[in-house]
């Protein structure tokens, strides 16, 4: 290919992708107020620079023969202890480069958007520094060549997510949401760590190459164990049932954060982990099935929650859970699903970021109101937001030729071939998705205006709608652009090439059924929500709505399963300390004090007394020596 022959691409510089945003984050955080006036522009340049590099590497890989598209870049020996040799290294291959493009591409757009969205925030510099930190950590996560380096990135994105969810830390709810996300993620991280340690024990290495090579020799029991532990890790990071509860609260963060971290990139890390660990999962049908079931359950739970919320960001958060559920389902199907999982992940990155930023634009116009019952008829005053949001909407419901149409149909079809029951559930999920997204559109952009007093909606500035336009284009053509080559592109990482090699969708019976179900969902949504929307949420609602509004009682379950026992335990510990240990220690102290007071009297100050004591002591000592001689 011409492009690559012209370019001198040096793969030893891949670390620059990570270093640029990392250094920028460090600069902004350490230089302090000096960078207040221009730091956000510098921070926006960092992901753009990484994106440019990533495009160069992508084109270079594109030009290489298929067999040479995996480039391992050793950096240095990280841990050297006895027989352990753990190398820190990076890996560029067809899978990671797609992630790098998504992270830096969508990340750049969201940085630009944030220039407008966060323009008046007093802590703008800190916000941009954290965003850069996130980009760096996420790139490290996807570029790592072994599980331990991946774990460093994994924790890094967790940290950035925590910092950004509780960015408005003066709000108690935001601070609590950040903590919740961090703590729930800890459970998942434990799973990933156990998996990595088990790999170390089994293969003496955690590098992807060694693990893939050694997976064949693994006994089924160990393969299942590692697989389940990886799944626990993926559940935590990707907000899958049963570790889903943090994602809805995470919406407390600024909206660009929700778009970047809690929709487009970080929450998809679990899918990346499962696909990357394909070799392990292929050894264990049980673990694979577990992944598929977790994905299916989550896609239904997320859709259910999405149907019942009035908070626009929470609807989108529910839908994020649901879409990641689809990806997990695809990843659980096995090699036939990997490409579709990644395909859906990429298109989802576009349309979900698009809709989140659109929601941010709506909030920007309505004084940060998130209640959809206070919207209505916004399409006239926010025309650009409306059109771009509509692109995302059509993409997520799977309208023909839009991005989600290709990727989601593939997943449903693959599910039908793999596990027909899961296929049916995924199909139902698609219908529900169409329903709640239509509800969101109707309540936000159509109907009567229900704006609060003093709210004068206005279109966002160009710096905010230009990224929206780019993402809308992605939502529109992303599917068509990727459909013809993504299957064969991902073949080197174990994905099986499907027969979908054209940019045109293949018409299949399942595809037609899916379209019909989606059509029903849209029609139902339109019929139910074209009428006037009550200003406050009705209290007399069906049991389904109540359950959905309470996030399927996920928090209640956590409360009774974890929080309450932990509280009981800590209260028991406190009581033991208070009633048992403290009096004991204090009693001993008092005893020593009393003893001292009594013994003090002996010290009367007369030299003769001391002398006498000494003499008596010596006499006793002498007697003791004499007697011991005699005996």
């Amino acid at each position: 290919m011409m492009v690559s022959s012209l370019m001198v691409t040096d793969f030893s510089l891949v670390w620059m992708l990570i270093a640029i945003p990392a250094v920028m984050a460090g600069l902004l955080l350490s230089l302090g107020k000096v960078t207040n006036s221009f730091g956000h522009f510098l921070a926006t340049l960092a992901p753009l620079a990484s994106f440019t590099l990533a495009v160069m590497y992508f084109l270079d890989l594109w030009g290489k023969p298929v067999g040479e598209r995996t480039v391992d870049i050793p950096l240095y020996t990280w841990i050297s202890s006895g027989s352990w040799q753990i190398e820190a290294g990076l890996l560029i291959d067809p899978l990671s480069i797609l992630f790098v493009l998504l992270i830096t591409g969508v990340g750049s757009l969201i940085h630009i958007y944030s220039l407008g969205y966060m323009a008046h925030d007093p802590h703008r510099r800190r916000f941009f520094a954290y965003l850069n930190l996130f980009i760096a950590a996420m790139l490290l996560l996807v570029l790592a060549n072994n599980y331990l380096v991946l774990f460093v990135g994994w924790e890094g994105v967790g940290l950035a997510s925590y910092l950004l969810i509780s960015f408005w830390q003066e709000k108690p709810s935001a601070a609590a949401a950040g903590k919740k996300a961090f703590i729930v993620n800890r459970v998942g991280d434990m799973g990933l760590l156990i998996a990595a340690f088990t790999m170390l024990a089994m293969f003496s290495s955690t590098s992807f190459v060694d693990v893939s090579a050694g997976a064949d020799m693994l006994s089924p029991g160990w393969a299942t164990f590692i697989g389940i532990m990886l799944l626990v890790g993926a559940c935590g990071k990707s907000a899958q049932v049963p570790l889903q509860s943090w994602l809805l609260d995470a919406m407390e963060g600024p909206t660009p954060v929700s778009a970047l971290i809690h929709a487009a990139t970080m929450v998809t890390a679990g899918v990346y982990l499962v696909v990357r660990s394909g070799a392990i999962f292929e050894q264990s049908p049980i673990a694979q099935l577990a992944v598929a079931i977790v994905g299916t359950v989550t896609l239904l739970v997320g859709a259910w929650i999405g149907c019942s919320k009035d908070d626009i960001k929470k609807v989108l958060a529910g839908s994020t859970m649901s879409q990641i559920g689809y990806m997990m389902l695809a990843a659980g199907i096995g090699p036939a699903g990997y490409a579709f999982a990644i395909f859906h992940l990429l298109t989802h990155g576009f349309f979900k970021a698009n809709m989140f930023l659109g929601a941010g634009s709506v909030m920007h116009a309505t004084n940060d109101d998130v209640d959809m019952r206070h919207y209505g008829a916004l399409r006239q005053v926010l025309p650009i937001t409306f059109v771009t949001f509509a692109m995302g909407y059509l993409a997520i419901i799977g309208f023909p030729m839009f991005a989600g149409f290709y990727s989601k149909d593939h997943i449903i079809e693959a599910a039908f071939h793999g596990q027909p029951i899961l296929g049916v559930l995924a199909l139902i999920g698609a219908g529900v998705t169409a329903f709640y997204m239509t509800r969101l559109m109707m309540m936000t952009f159509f109907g009567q205006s229900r704006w609060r007093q003093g709210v004068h909606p206005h279109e966002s500035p160009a710096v905010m709608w230009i990224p929206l336009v780019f993402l809308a284009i992605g939502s529109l053509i992303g599917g068509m652009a990727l459909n013809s080559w993504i299957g064969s592109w991902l073949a080197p990482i174990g994905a099986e090439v499907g027969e979908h090699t054209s940019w045109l969708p293949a018409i299949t019976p399942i595809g037609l059924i899916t379209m019909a179900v989606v059509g029903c969902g849209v029609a139902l949504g339109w019929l139910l929500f074209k009428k006037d929307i009550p200003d406050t949420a009705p209290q007399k609602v069906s049991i389904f709505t109540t359950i959905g509004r309470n996030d399927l009682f996920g928090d209640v379950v956590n409360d009774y399963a974890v929080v309450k026992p932990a509280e009981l335990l800590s209260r028991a510990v406190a009581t033991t300390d208070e009633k048992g240990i403290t009096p004991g220690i204090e009693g001993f102290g008092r005893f020593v004090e009393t003893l001292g007071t009594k013994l003090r009297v002996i010290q009367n100050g007369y030299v003769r007394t001391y002398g006498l004591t000494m003499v008596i002591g010596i006499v006793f000592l002498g007697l003791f020596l004499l007697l011991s001689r005699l005996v």
Partner: protein
Amino acid sequence: MTSLYAVLAVILFTIGLIGFLIRRNALVVFMCVELMLNACNLLFVAFSSHHGVLDGQMAAFFVMVVAAAEVVIGLSIIVMITRTRRSTSVDAENVLKG
């Protein structure tokens, strides 16, 4: 012969001990301590001669050196106390008590 030296040493030691316990004048107490030390020295030397080895004489020299050092420090303390408190009674120095 040695037994006579031993008896003498015990008598000297007992005199020193009783003096140390009952006398109040700091200087006399001090002299009594010296007397006890020298009683010990006498025993050392006597037994050294009795056994025909030099270990006891060595020990006696050590005791003398230590006694000399002790005298220097002890006397200077007594002199300082006498100057400040106008008394040489050991019972007057009873402020160091619990």
